[in-house]
């Protein structure tokens, strides 16, 4: 940029200031930054669901499948009424140390199962679909808000 200077001193000072050598940064700067970078990386890795080796992804998929299979099987057995008594018996055993709490939990669970069985399967499926839609809408809105905030932050950085 060509600049107009009123006198020789201004011009000379401009030249001298531009020619000033850089000051040596303290030796602590790089270790400090690298420590923060490593901490950020650790945090990012801990929260990342996409990252990871194929074996890790496979393990997660297997765990989710197993959980879903157990949930479906238990749900189906309960719906048919086969497992209600033995399952409640087991629950009562788990809560043996806190019997009152165990009984209350069993009563609540029984009420829930009775309530669910009294609902027509079509309505139940609709409620289920509605609950799932609400859940995914919340997750989606959260993800959108996160992306929006992150994008804004990156724009303000650059």
């Amino acid at each position, binding site marked *: *940029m060509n600049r107009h200077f009123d006198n020789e*001193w*201004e011009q000379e*000072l*401009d030249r*001298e*200031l*531009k*020619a*000033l*050598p*850089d*000051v*040596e*940064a*303290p030796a*602590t*700067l*790089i270790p*400090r*930054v*690298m420590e*923060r*970078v*490593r901490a*950020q*990386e650790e945090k990012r890795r801990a929260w990342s669901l996409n990252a990871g080796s194929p074996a890790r992804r496979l393990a997660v998929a297997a765990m989710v499948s197993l959980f879903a299979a157990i949930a479906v099987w238990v749900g189906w057995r309960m719906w048919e009424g086969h497992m209600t008594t033995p399952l409640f018996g087991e629950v009562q055993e788990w809560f043996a140390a806190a019997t009152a709490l165990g009984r209350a939990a069993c009563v609540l669970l029984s009420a829930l199962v009775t309530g669910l069985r009294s609902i027509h399967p079509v309505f139940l499926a609709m409620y289920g679909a509605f609950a799932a839609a609400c859940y995914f809408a919340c997750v989606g809105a959260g993800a959108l808000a996160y992306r929006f905030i992150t994008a804004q932050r*990156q724009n303000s*950085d*650059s």
Partner: protein
Amino acid sequence: MTDAQQFEAFMRSHQNMVFSTALRLTANASDAEDIAQEVFLRAYRHFGELRENPRAGGWLRTVATHLGLNHLSRYRKRWSFFSELSNDEAEDRGESPLNAAADADPDPFLESDRKEVLDHALQKLPASQRVPLVLFHMEGMSYEEIASRLGVSLAKVKTDIFRAREALRSRLQATLENRRIP
């Protein structure tokens, strides 16, 4: 070479420039190191784009300037108050603020060269003069841009830069005269 090693090498090649930019604005090594750290953390987030970019230095310098100014504006009321107070006190004592930098610390540079004297004199200027001077001469900003960025009038920017130049001239002259005295 891993990403971390590449980033460390990148930092090593730019750290002095980033630190100097922050130091010349803040005149405080500790603050300048904090600002430099923040600049590099932001650079790490954009390292994919900056890695091979020939304009990475310019990006780092701009971010360092912005963060330095943000830092100063955070403490602005405090520093403008003290700088105005010290100028008023000097005027009350019959001293010109133009000579303040020349009068303080009269003879520490007999062995050093002109650049060191100039750099030291720059650090000694009150923030209200040093910041617009650095932005004008070293960061290439116009008077209007400086006035807008600092939120002060154009006339004040011009006056402060004029005073800073005169103070630096006095300081350099005083040092050169001291060198001539055996």
